[in-house]
């Protein structure tokens, strides 16, 4: 019975924790302008994140060590450093965006300018990262993040023409008033948002924090292969809700309130209150995950003590990095930079950094010295290689598309 509860909790957490500020903003922007025509990109990203999260989780369960810990050892310090710098900078950028997202969520209920809320949010995030238990961080915000299911309810309430939504998704038909360059820019952005690097760092490091062994591989797979796809459905619900309500009005989403507006249109104040709780939980949970991931990556590369399972005085460097990252994030946001713009940049740079994150995982998961009998099978390798090619294409195309389209204008 305990095992089933554990599986159910893991799946619920995976669903609620799947969506972060990048998914919220990018899916709403895409939905309002392109409808469901880019759902294929989210689905491809979903296959990718499931595939590589499973690999990194399996590596953690079999070796008892997290990704960065093994990358330097397996691929050498130079590649490890490249991997560290690329992935860590993107994760830091995402951390800034998530803290900004929490402040924007609180602004929606308090009407206090988000810049004034940022120091308070940064302090609370840091305190949680320092004091709270790992399970609490992972489960509490994951479960609370389930409030975002309200997007799916909103789509239902809006009584759409399901056939038309499905047809648009199946044919990937670009609206005639949009450009192909913008279409592809958003395809890459959605892909980057679905496969954000920190998700696998957090997942594999979390496995080590929770002392996974080979016996936990089944539970881990259930979380990944059931929880993540259901979380992906939330992304698609955001797209559909935005298309149905904001699309006809011609609203191009540029703020968090506009992401939540479709729910208000469909369900009124109660729906709006629930979606704001969902925004808060999703961004706060992701802020904790990204903050920890910055600390994980640097500490694991340098081989110092890391993690929440070690007492803070035994992992001082790890906590110092987390604290410093929080100060940097707050400092950047206090300049008045728009957190939504930071989010837009972070998903594009996520796409750029994808090969640096996912190539080493594929290499380590194929190494029998680490993995023994749990080494990748032919299906995982074939899918992993195809996905790596897609990741490489997205990575190369991301910045030229960003410049060419003026960030998707």
């Amino acid at each position, binding site marked *: 019975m305990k095992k089933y509860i554990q599986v159910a909790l893991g799946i619920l957490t995976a669903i609620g924790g799947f969506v972060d500020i990048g998914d919220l903003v990018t899916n709403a922007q895409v939905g309002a302008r392109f409808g469901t025509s880019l759902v294929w990109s989210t689905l491809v990203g979903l296959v990718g994140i499931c595939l590589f999260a499973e690999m990194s989780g399996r590596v953690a369960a079999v070796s008892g060590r997290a990704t960065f810990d093994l990358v330097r050892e397996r691929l050498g310090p130079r590649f490890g450093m490249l991997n560290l710098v690329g992935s860590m900078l993107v994760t830091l950028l995402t951390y800034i965006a998530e803290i900004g997202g929490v402040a924007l969520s609180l602004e929606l209920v308090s009407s206090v300018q988000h810049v004034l809320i940022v120091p308070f949010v940064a302090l609370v995030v840091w305190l949680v990262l320092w004091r709270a238990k790992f399970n609490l961080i992972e489960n509490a915000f994951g479960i609370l993040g389930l409030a975002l299911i309200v997007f799916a309810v909103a789509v239902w309430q809006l009584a759409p023409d399901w056939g038309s939504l499905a047809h648009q998704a199946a044919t990937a038909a670009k609206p005639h008033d949009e450009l192909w360059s913008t279409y592809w820019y958003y395809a890459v952005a959605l892909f980057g948002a679905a496969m954000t690097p920190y998700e696998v760092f957090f997942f594999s490091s979390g496995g080590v924090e929770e002392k996974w062994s080979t016996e936990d591989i089944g539970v881990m797979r259930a979380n990944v292969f059931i929880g993540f796809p259901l979380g992906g459905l939330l992304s698609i619900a955001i797209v559909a809700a935005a298309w149905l309500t904001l699309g006809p009005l011609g609203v191009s989403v540029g703020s968090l309130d506009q992401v939540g507006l479709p729910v*208000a249109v469909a369900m009124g104040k109660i729906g709006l209150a629930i979606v704001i709780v969902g925004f808060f939980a999703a961004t706060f949970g992701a802020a904790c995950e990204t903050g920890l991931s910055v600390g994980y990556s640097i500490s694991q590369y340098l081989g110092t003590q890391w993690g929440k399972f070690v007492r803070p005085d035994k992992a001082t460097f790890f906590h110092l990095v987390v604290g410093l990252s929080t100060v940097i994030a707050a400092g950047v946001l206090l300049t008045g930079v728009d957190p939504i713009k930071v989010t837009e940049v972070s998903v594009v740079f996520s796409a750029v950094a994808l090969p640096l994150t996912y190539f080493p995982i594929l290499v380590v998961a194929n190494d029998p010295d680490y993995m023994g009998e749990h080494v990748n099978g032919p299906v995982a390798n074939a899918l992993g290689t195809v996905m790596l090619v897609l990741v490489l294409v997205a990575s190369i195309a991301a910045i030229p598309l960003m410049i060419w389209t003026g960030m998707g204008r």
Partner: protein
Amino acid sequence: MHRPASLLLLAVALTLASATACEPAQPDHEDWRDDAYYAVSDTSSDMAAAYAVLRQLERDRVMGNFAQVSLVTAEEHAGKVADRFGAEQQPEADDARQHRVEEALSSAGDLLTATREAVVRRNRSAYPGLASRLTQTRRALDRLATDLGGVRG
């Protein structure tokens, strides 16, 4: 590199940077048209968002604080768009169109300010009139965007 040479390079770079920073952007006709199109389209989107929020507020389907934040965001965004566009030096042939666009952006900004003021004061009787004006202004902006015939026009 010798120190004086590096200092000279730095001085030249700083002089060039400060000189070009004072110079307004001077796009050619095509670029100006695209910038004008984007400015008008972005502002039209702000009007549409403000309209949607106001209608929901009228029906008591959103909280006052939420509506306030939405309208402040739309107003600020429209203001930034107008400022950015106004800082450009249009090609001479586009003087009249620049004036027309600036006027349209300015009146849209004024309307967003009036809407925000009404919402902050919870002046519910003004909502229907403002919603109607927001729709009219948005339509006028959409027509202007089509006339400009920019990137997506």
